[in-house]
């Protein structure tokens, strides 16, 4: 953990010194996470790709121009930027507030070659329901579900990204999970 933090700090310092390779490494390290984070917030693959790209460009400019002394981690910094970019995106496109997730055809393919076809279909169906239910959650809960239970970030990292206390994040995590569980149970009940 300490070593990871040090490596991350080293990377941050290298990016700060305008090292292109360090930036490429940062991109490789976080692009999947940031894309996923944005995808669950905007529910559209193309939009998520554009916004992800914007996040990294903004991160580069931010690191070059602002003091990074207060940043506890590079990852937290990039998530914060991603979060702000999504907020700006919704501000500019307020009509798209309740976007439905991509249709079955346009949706994302889960990359897992080990699954057998039947199981894959079942899993895909379950995940599709879950994905839809995640988008039904209020923004605050959705954000926590993504960061805590999908990305598996620590409580303190999430607290840093969201600007909340550790205690708040713990409570929000519990409530968000309970809300999602209720939605899933209601879905099951409706299906029967």
């Amino acid at each position: 953990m300490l070593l990871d933090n040090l490596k991350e700090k080293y990377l941050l310092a290298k990016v700060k010194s305008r090292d292109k390779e360090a930036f490429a490494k940062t991109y490789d390290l976080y692009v999947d996470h940031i894309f996923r984070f944005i995808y669950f917030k905007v529910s559209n693959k193309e939009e998520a790709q554009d916004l992800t790209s914007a996040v990294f460009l903004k991160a580069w400019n931010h690191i070059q121009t602002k003091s990074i002394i207060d940043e506890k981690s590079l990852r937290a910094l990039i998530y914060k930027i991603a979060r702000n970019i999504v907020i700006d995106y919704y501000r500019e496109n307020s009509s798209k507030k309740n976007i439905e997730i991509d249709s079955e055809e346009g949706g994302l393919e889960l990359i897992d070659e080990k699954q057998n076809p039947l199981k894959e279909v079942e899993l895909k169906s379950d995940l599709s329901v879950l994905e839809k239910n995640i988008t039904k959650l209020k923004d605050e809960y959705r954000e926590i579900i993504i960061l805590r239970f999908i990305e598996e970030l620590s409580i303190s990292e999430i607290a840093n990204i969201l600007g909340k206390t550790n205690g708040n994040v713990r409570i929000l995590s519990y409530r968000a999970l309970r809300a999602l569980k209720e939605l899933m149970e209601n879905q099951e009940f409706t299906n029967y």
Partner: protein
Amino acid sequence: MNEKELLSQLHNFRDIKPENSWKDSNREILLSQISNSQSIEKVSFFDVLKNYLSLDFVFQPTGVMVMLFFVLAGSAAASIKAAQDTKPGDSLYIAKIISEKTRESITFDENERAKLGVEFAANRAKEIVEVAQDEKNEEKKNENIEKLTKDFKEEVKVAKTRISKISRKKINDIDNKKNNGMAGGNGSSNISNGSAGGGNEDVFSAGSGKSENNLKISDAPGGYSNMSVQAIEEAEKLFEKKDYGGAINKLSEAADNVEKGLDENINKAEVKGEKIGTTTKR
């Protein structure tokens, strides 16, 4: 669906990834966008440390001095602590002696200084026991014991002088207050016990330490000082008989009495604070 299943399914979403082709092309685009501003600066270990610690001040001259002070103070404190149980011949013994001298030189209260003297004398006695037990080389052992005996006597002498000085000072103070009280009083009033730290009982303290009013020795001002001196003298006798354990116990008793004398002074000062300037009638 239970919570475990839900968490497991959520975990599966980690497989959602953008297409590799998009990732590669986007990376190229990003790198070309940032390349205009590229000029690599060397990143030193201190840059990383600076970011990691998130403390600007440590790189300022004041910060460095503060850190240096703490490092040195910390090392010194650790050395002194480690040196507490050393004896002559140990590498840290000199640190112990320096620490004792330093404590003595920065202590200004006479009672505290007297207590330190007793404590240091006890230290010498302890060291003799340790040297006698641990030192294999007879010649070195005798040499160290001889030196420690000399130091012990010196410390005891100093402690006794200090305690006697304190005792004399107390008696003089009491006499002065008594005289002032009689001169400045209304004639009909007696200075009673507890008034201005003096009173009838003070008379007895100046002598043998015995009280004609059946007061205990320790009740009289300076009584604890006398008891301390007595304990030190007994310790000296035991030391001469090579009963170092007994000497250490007696010195410990002497130190306790000095401590009690210190408390006594504080209590008297409090009483004095309340009643000074007034004469109490029986």
